[in-house]
């Protein structure tokens, strides 16, 4: 096999076809404890939602429609697409002890349980009531979420990037290219390969020709 293909295969994480995804990330110890290599659990059926029709994102404010905290609104902290789960901040909690050791009983904390997408509804920004949401195109051609009941656009939540960078406040480093240089168009299409063009620019003349070789 080609080396690059082999390396990329190794880099991509491979899960068995009946892997049960939980709230823990697959590379953590807790997930490995819950999913040891030989385990077989009852299959979990997940409603297939196409990638383009997914409407709930991290940072959205949603309302719970059924369950313990029915009627409450909360912010989405985590989204699990492979199980149609959503974790809200501080809602739908159960209590457990964390960091238990031999002598210490552990810290009693509230941990959130995931909610299915069926039990969640996005909120209309104007009247703060739960609505059905559709994906529609604006006049500019942008795809936006529109509440079916009132027709108002539900804006995409502003979430801080994971690397902590705020694009508006970015300052160039010494090794960064300025925006003007990045967007400057210098390409002139021509019937020359890169090598020929570069040799021309550098003034390299190669009068030698390749020896006859055989390809088979």
């Amino acid at each position, binding site marked *: 096999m080609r080396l690059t293909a082999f390396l990329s295969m190794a880099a991509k994480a491979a899960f068995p076809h009946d892997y049960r995804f939980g709230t823990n990330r697959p590379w953590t110890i807790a997930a490995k404890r819950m999913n040891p290599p030989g385990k077989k659990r009852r299959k979990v059926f997940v409603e297939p939602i196409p990638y383009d029709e997914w409407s709930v994102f991290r940072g959205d404010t949603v309302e719970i429609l059924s369950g313990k905290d029915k009627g409450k609104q909360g912010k989405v902290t985590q989204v699990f697409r492979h199980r149609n789960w959503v974790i809200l901040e501080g809602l739908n909690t159960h209590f457990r002890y964390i960091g238990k050791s031999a002598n210490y009983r552990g810290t009693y904390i509230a941990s959130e349980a995931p909610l299915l997408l069926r039990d969640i509804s996005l909120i209309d920004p104007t009247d703060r009531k739960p609505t059905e949401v559709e994906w529609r195109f604006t006049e500019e051609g942008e795809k936006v979420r529109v509440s079916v009941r009132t027709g108002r656009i539900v804006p995409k939540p502003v979430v801080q990037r994971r690397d902590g960078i705020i694009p508006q406040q970015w300052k160039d480093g010494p090794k960064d290219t300025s925006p003007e240089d*990045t967007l400057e168009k*210098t390409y002139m299409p021509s019937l020359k*390969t890169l090598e020929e063009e570069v040799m021309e620019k550098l003034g390299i003349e190669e009068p030698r020709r390749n020896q006859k070789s055989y390809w088979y």
Partner: protein
Amino acid sequence: MAATSAGRVLTLCRQFQNAFRISTTLSAQQSTVTLTKGRSYPHRLPSTLLSSSWSCNLDLAVQCRPLHTTISRRGLEEFFDIPENWGEATVKSGAPWTAKQLRTKSNEDLHKLWYVLLKEKNMLLTIEQESKRQGQQMPSPERLKKIDRSIRRLDTVVKERENALRLLQTGQERARPGDWRKDVFGRIYWYRFREHALPWYMNRRYKRKRFYTPAFVAPHLRLRLEKYLRAKTRKQKKESENQAVLKEKFPQMQAKSQ
């Protein structure tokens, strides 16, 4: 449309990429040519200056008697980060180059950028190895990933341009010649040609390769085909059973199945 595209351009402007301030010192001419990304290239061509100075150097070398001097250490500092970043826990870096941005650049620019990225990658790999040796965390390892992606995208863009030119001028779809051949096991695969100095009828090792299926393999071909068909049918049946269960559980929406 205009507002959002301007907004997108603005956000693009705020994502910056890696460049390098290359400074070359030429001993023959005692002059320093600094190539800064913003100003000099692609309009100025200091590369011609470089080539003339190197040829000057060679002439001098031919005329003088060979003389042993101390090893020059210029340029080794380029294997390490700039002194301001020494000892920092995190070093901030901009976004990697996207293929869309690279496609707007000329071949000469891409050629220069390739070496800039290569040197940066060498620098980061040195830092990584050094931190491993000292048993410490490498500062900002995401820089390596960004550089890798930029290099791969640059390669993709260059390959695209090569492909387009070749298709236009010769009609050949592939850069490397090859052929569909049968191996000893009866499987048909794309055999990629290799370059040789001798023709095939004089190459003993090549003549020992078998690009045909011996007669005793024929019964196994049928068995292999049966195995493959059985596996395929099993998979299809499983998929249709899965679909039936999903439809039963979620009757409302059955838009697209995985």
